[in-house]
């Protein structure tokens, strides 16, 4: 009995210590990877995922890379050279092309997304704001219902004076989503018709989803 308890106690200590924990986890991860790989090989079905995984290993050009390049070229060509801040493929999320746009050019870029024949991203499925402590970011998820492809556009903004142009004029979806981000993260969307708090009371102090937010009453 006591031995077992000791074991468990030790385990607890281990867990608290980060380094050991990491090691342990890495081991498990390796195990998992091996297992899944084996299982995959064993199973006759050659899913797309497997293909993707193989391609990654071979360092071949990522799927959707061409889409990403086209989009970046489009932005650079039609809007401005410095419209695109960053562009990459998010391998973890079904290789979705991600383009970080400069907030000054967001509206122009968004208009292209909506109107371009090759893109036709008419459906804004989600808008989320993220606080990265160094900066704030707004992530737009677009999908085209006709062409059935998915793009992600990001905008970075300053943490002290966060301002991003509003997309309400193009997609009405953005309306409440932007209000929610304003409410919880404090990003002001210029051009929004009704930039008011939506979740919290109007007289609330602070923006709760900021990482440095401290509740007025920690008990609540």
């Amino acid at each position, binding site marked *: 009995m*006591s031995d*077992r*308890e000791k*074991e*468990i*106690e030790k*385990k*607890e200590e281990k867990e608290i210590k980060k380094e050991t924990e990491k090691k342990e986890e890495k081991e498990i991860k390796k195990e998992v990877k091996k297992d899944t790989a084996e299982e995959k090989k064993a199973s006759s079905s050659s899913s797309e995922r497997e293909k993707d995984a193989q391609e990654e290993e071979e360092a071949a050009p990522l799927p959707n890379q061409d889409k990403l390049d086209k989009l970046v070229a489009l932005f650079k060509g039609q809007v401005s050279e410095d419209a695109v801040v960053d562009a990459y493929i998010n391998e973890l999320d079904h290789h979705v092309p991600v383009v970080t746009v400069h907030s000054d050019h967001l509206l122009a870029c968004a208009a292209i997304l909506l109107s371009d024949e090759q893109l036709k991203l008419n459906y804004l499925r989600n808008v989320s704001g993220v606080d990265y402590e160094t900066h704030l970011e707004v992530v737009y998820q677009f999908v085209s219902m006709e062409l059935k492809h998915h793009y992600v556009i990001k905008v970075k903004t300053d943490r002290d004076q966060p301002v991003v142009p509003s997309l309400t004029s193009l997609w009405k979806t953005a309306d409440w989503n932007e209000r929610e981000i304003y409410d919880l993260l404090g990003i002001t969307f210029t051009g929004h018709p009704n930039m008011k708090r939506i979740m919290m009371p109007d007289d609330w102090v602070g923006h709760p989803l900021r990482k440095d937010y401290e509740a007025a009453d920690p008990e609540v």
Partner: protein
Amino acid sequence: MKGIVKGLGVTFKNITKKKVTYAYPDVPMNMPDRFRGVQHFEPDKCIVCNQCARVCPTDCITLVGKQDPNSEKKVKIIDTYDINFEICILCDLCTEVCPTEAIVMTNNFELATYSRDDLFKDLHWLENNNTLVRSENSTNLQPKAKPKPKPKATKEEGVK
């Protein structure tokens, strides 16, 4: 008119159908075995590992251990164990992580009370709440039966 008459037919037919209401407070409800009710706690089995308190999504469990007077080694036994049922969401995670099955689920669910203070359940209350324990755990409920924790319970099966 046809639709209205059809609808009247449906409702008329239902007059004689068997009623589906429960006679609940008069006839107790029998919940299935897996039902997540109020926990039962067995102090003897507890090894004060604190896992239940840490895994709780709402932080409703508080426990304090003390040095076992009968043992010279550094063995802790439970001193106080409280669950605040004001915020407990009966999610089953505490019983899932418990390596010794000291805390297990029962089928009792009647927590309604007149005062919020009554929702703060302590060790003795939880110990006495020993009826209708989930059958996979109740085998260990026999008095003095030694707890048989699965040897690897803490390693990988944390999340079953």
